């Protein structure tokens, strides 16, 4: 029987030709896109889910002096917290330094960037799978390391790595490999290749304003985050507050900028939602996850609607079959199941096509979003099964309406040759679906245009500085006290406009905040501190609004500060900022315009600039000619200063671009799926036009005979659909407006939503619809009416 259905499905496809191809391809595209999005969402939403007891593991993040919060927290916590909170079953901490560590295997030296230093409880808490070695006892003895299977293969090939020794760090400390970890089948933000022992941490009770380690706690079964929050509150009041030595009462202190703050983060939320400073690994983008999820759902809807539309439209040609079957006494249930089976058969064919498409789409998606999805559809039966289940479901869902509709037709109606009694109601459902498809398409077009405009705005906005052509040299400390000399030497190179030694560069990771107040203020406020020499403003192209720059001599500049506009406002000295006294012995000598030094999602904070003639970084403003040559010169000069390490540098504009990487990735992903959605919707429209025109062949013939021109016929045929697209535009308008508004509200610097985006989206949808319609409409209007009328 099922074979019979499949046979019927294949015959239907053959008979319907182009339409079947459009139908299947549309569905396949929808399934493939939704599948890729589904895989992406699954990956992003299931971080850490493979660890035993993951739901009981939490990380504690902290903040003090209102620095913006740190993913790391105090070194005392792992000792102090379990004592304060009996519900804690296990505590572990780890650390990671940014730079790669040298590893010697025999005589070969490797540089490993993917590593962390962990204590002995680490593998008790995180149930990584050990291929060799014993997880329970790993890292319990000094001098032990654990490595990933990938690293074991790289270091030792096919030999067993367990028990072998490697030498770590510049001191070539000998370590023994006590465990080999299999790459987890799930994603975790803790994935590294090399786990080194953490140096013993001495227990101290004072000095709670530090964020030295990533601290994780596992609670006993039956406890949740509340126990941790409560315990941290007690710790704050009973230990940290007394240790701070401040004179204000506890309640006042805990709400002041000097207070220590804690956040309790469920392990499974860290990757996607945690956006603190010093995150161990860059996090995910929840907006992208949910927006793409919605788009995936939309794509399925559009593809499903196509399916319903084209199937019901095609039903006209099957009415005779149904009539005959009904008159022979086939029950309605049988007919329904026949149509459902055919629908499923068609969606299974679509699935096969979708599998191929998904592979292509997957690599394309990975390429544009930079998110690698660990999926191999063809070889992994699990994914094939998922696709299969998915397709059957889609086939059933999309087939329900056509099946019910077709089976409802009464045989008398049909065999009489009319069957047109329900033309109008059927048309209405079809119209609603077309409106829905195009509304979705317009929402997506407007959405991706909006994201793109915001992105352009973020790229082009006046940042208050000029990052183009600015090179940042790092690790200036390598040169010892010869930084100034190096600066002077670079200044002599003709291609270098100016240089500046600085402790902090915009977009950089270094943080510096101080508490400042004017004599009028009762309590200080925290200002972002930038320390640099007198050439900072010129090198970075900042604008001095009032007063003067530093002079470059320590004697006068050490008491001078320059504020940005926000800081002037924050300190309440807009009237006459120059000469104002800040704290005990600082005086304002200048005001610069606000400049961006972090993501445009956040507003510009008050900034105070202080003079420093030494620092770890140097900004170099190249005047734009012969970059390769200049870099060679810089490298040569650096080498002359006797550093063993090669010079390390980056371009400032690139690090500004990195700040909008999330938006770029989102924009590309939305664009990709938006075009897919439009394509699918247009394919549906293409098929539907064909049917509509077939149904109206006679009418077209009559009109032509009565004198209608080709243009008039095309206009007539298009107007029906264009009206639907128009309605879709009206439906889409409010939805996309409010969605865009709420997305843009998360940005401190954002575009205004003018009518442009929406008009463009509407116009684009209409144009695409016209192009789609044009083929059939023009073809129909060129047909000789004598043929269509006579051989009916």
């Amino acid at each position, binding site marked *: 029987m099922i074979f019979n259905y499949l046979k019927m499905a294949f015959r239907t496809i053959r008979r319907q030709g182009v339409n079947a191809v459009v139908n299947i391809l549309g569905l396949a595209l929808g399934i493939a896109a939704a599948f890729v999005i589904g895989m992406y969402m699954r990956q992003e939403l299931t971080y850490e889910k493979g660890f035993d007891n993951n739901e009981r593991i939490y990380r504690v993040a902290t903040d003090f002096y209102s620095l913006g919060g740190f993913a790391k927290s105090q070194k005392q916590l792992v000792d102090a917290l379990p004592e304060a909170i009996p519900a804690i079953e296990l505590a572990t901490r780890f650390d990671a330094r940014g730079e790669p560590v040298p590893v010697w295997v025999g005589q070969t030296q490797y540089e490993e960037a993917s590593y962390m230093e962990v204590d002995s409880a680490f593998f008790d808490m995180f149930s990584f799978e050990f291929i060799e070695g014993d997880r329970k006892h790993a890292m319990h003895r000094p001098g032990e390391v654990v490595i990933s299977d990938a690293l074991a293969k790289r270091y030792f090939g096919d030999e067993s790595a367990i028990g072998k020794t490697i030498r770590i760090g510049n001191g070539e400390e000998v370590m023994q490999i006590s465990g080999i970890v299999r790459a987890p089948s799930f994603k975790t933000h803790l994935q590294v290749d090399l786990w080194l022992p953490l140096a013993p941490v001495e227990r101290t009770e004072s000095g709670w304003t530090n964020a030295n380690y990533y601290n994780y706690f596992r609670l006993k079964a039956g406890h949740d985050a509340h126990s941790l929050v409560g315990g941290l509150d007690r710790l704050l009041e009973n230990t940290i507050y007394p240790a701070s030595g401040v004179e204000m009462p506890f309640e006042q202190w805990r709400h002041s900028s000097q207070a220590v703050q804690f956040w309790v983060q469920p392990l499974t939320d860290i990757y996607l939602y945690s956006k603190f400073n010093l995150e161990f690994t860059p996090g995910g983008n929840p907006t992208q996850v949910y927006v793409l999820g919605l788009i995936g759902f939309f794509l399925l809807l559009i593809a499903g609607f196509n399916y319903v539309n084209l199937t019901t439209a095609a039903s006209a040609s099957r009415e005779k079959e149904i009539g005959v079957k009904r008159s022979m006494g086939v029950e309605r249930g049988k007919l329904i199941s026949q149509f459902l089976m055919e629908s499923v058969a068609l969606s299974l064919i679509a699935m096969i096509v979708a599998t191929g498409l998904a592979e292509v789409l997957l690599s394309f998606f990975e390429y544009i979003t930079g998110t690698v999805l660990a999926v191999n559809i063809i070889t992994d039966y699990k994914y094939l099964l998922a696709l299969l289940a998915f397709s059957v479901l889609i086939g059933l869902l999309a087939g329900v309406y056509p099946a019910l509709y077709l089976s409802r037709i009464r045989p008398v109606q049909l065999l009489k040759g009319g069957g047109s009694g329900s033309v109008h109601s059927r048309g209405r459902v079809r119209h609603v679906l077309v409106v829905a498809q195009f509304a979705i398409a317009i929402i997506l077009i407007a959405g991706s245009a909006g994201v793109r405009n915001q992105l352009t705005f973020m790229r082009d906005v006046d940042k208050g500085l000029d990052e183009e052509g600015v090179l940042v040299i790092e690790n200036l400390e390598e040169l010892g006290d010869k930084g100034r000399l190096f600066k002077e030497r670079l200044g002599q190179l003709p291609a270098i406009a100016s240089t500046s030694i600085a402790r902090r560069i915009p977009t950089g990771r270094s943080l510096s905040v101080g508490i400042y107040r004017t004599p009028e203020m009762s309590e200080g406020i925290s200002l972002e501190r930038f320390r640099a020499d007198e050439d900072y403003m010129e090198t970075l192209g900042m604008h001095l609004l009032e007063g003067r720059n530093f002079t470059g001599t320590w004697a006068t500049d050490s008491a001078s500060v320059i504020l940005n506009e926000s800081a002037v406002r924050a300190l309440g000295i807009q009237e006459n900022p120059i000469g104002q006294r800040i704290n005990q012995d600082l005086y304002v000598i200048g005001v610069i315009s606000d400049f961006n030094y972090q993501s445009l999602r956040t507003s510009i904070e008050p900034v105070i600039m202080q003079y420093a003639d030494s620092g770890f970084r140097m900004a170099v403003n190249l005047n734009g000619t012969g970059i390769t040559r200049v870099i060679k010169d810089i490298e040569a000069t650096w080498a002359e200063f006797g550093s063993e390490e090669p010079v390390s540098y980056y371009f400032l504009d690139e690090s500004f671009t990195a700040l909008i990487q999330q938006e770029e990735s989102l924009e590309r992903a939305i664009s990709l799926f938006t075009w897919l959605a439009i394509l699918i919707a247009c394919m549906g429209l293409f098929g539907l036009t064909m049917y509509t025109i077939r149904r109206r062949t006679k009418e077209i013939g*009559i*009109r032509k005979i009565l*004198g209608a021109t080709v243009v008039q016929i095309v206009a007539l045929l298009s107007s029906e659909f264009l009206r639907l697209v128009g309605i879709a535009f009206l439906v889409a308008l409010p939805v996309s407006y409010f969605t865009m508004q709420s997305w843009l509200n998360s940005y401190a610097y954002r575009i205004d939503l003018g009518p442009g985006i929406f008009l463009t989206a509407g116009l684009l949808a209409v144009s695409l619809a016209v192009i789609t319609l044009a083929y059939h409409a023009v073809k129909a209007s060129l047909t*000789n009416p004598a043929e269509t009328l006579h051989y009916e």
Partner: protein
Amino acid sequence: MILTKELKKVYRTDEIETTALAGVNVDIKAGEFVSIMGPSGCGKSTLLNILGLLDNPSTGEYHFIGNEVSKFSERQRAGMRKGNIGFVFQSFNLIDELTVFENVELPLLYIGVGSKEREEKVHAALDRVGMMHRRKHFPQQLSGGQQQRVAIARAVVASPKLILADEPTGNLDSAHGQEVMKLLTELNEGGTTIIMVTHSPADAEYSHRVIHLFDGHVVSENFMRERYAMN
């Protein structure tokens, strides 16, 4: 009004060449009512299509109101059709989605008649066929005879010089058929030239002249003397 010389129409598919008209000469004067008869497949419809400027002959000449139109493009033919030729079909060919009024109005729309004048002309045409009271109905709400009367109203609304009727009574019972034939006769008496394809000798009785076609040839022309004499 209509003069054809050696009109030929050949249909070619990949393998077969079919001659539908093999050198037809007809001469129809303004004000005539001519029937074309013949067995199925003799070329009646092909001839009607060519005479109605829906199709071009393969070779031969066709003079319509003094113009040699056999080489006209589709656009030129459409222009010549407008206002000059009205069509009545066996299957009525009314547009189901439009009301009686709107169906009759169509030809006027396409020749660009203003709305006030359109209304007057449509009403006059519907009056003439006695369908004024049904002007707001849809075709499917009417009987076959009524539909054909609406189709005739549509054919005459733009006051064409020529009406081509392709088996206008073929789908009607005899009572309704007679009504339609009476209407056509009235139109002809009003000065409109009518060419009608028919299988029915009774219907042919209403015309002045019958052209018999067989295998693409005109085999005979009979004048209905008594009726012709009546005029």
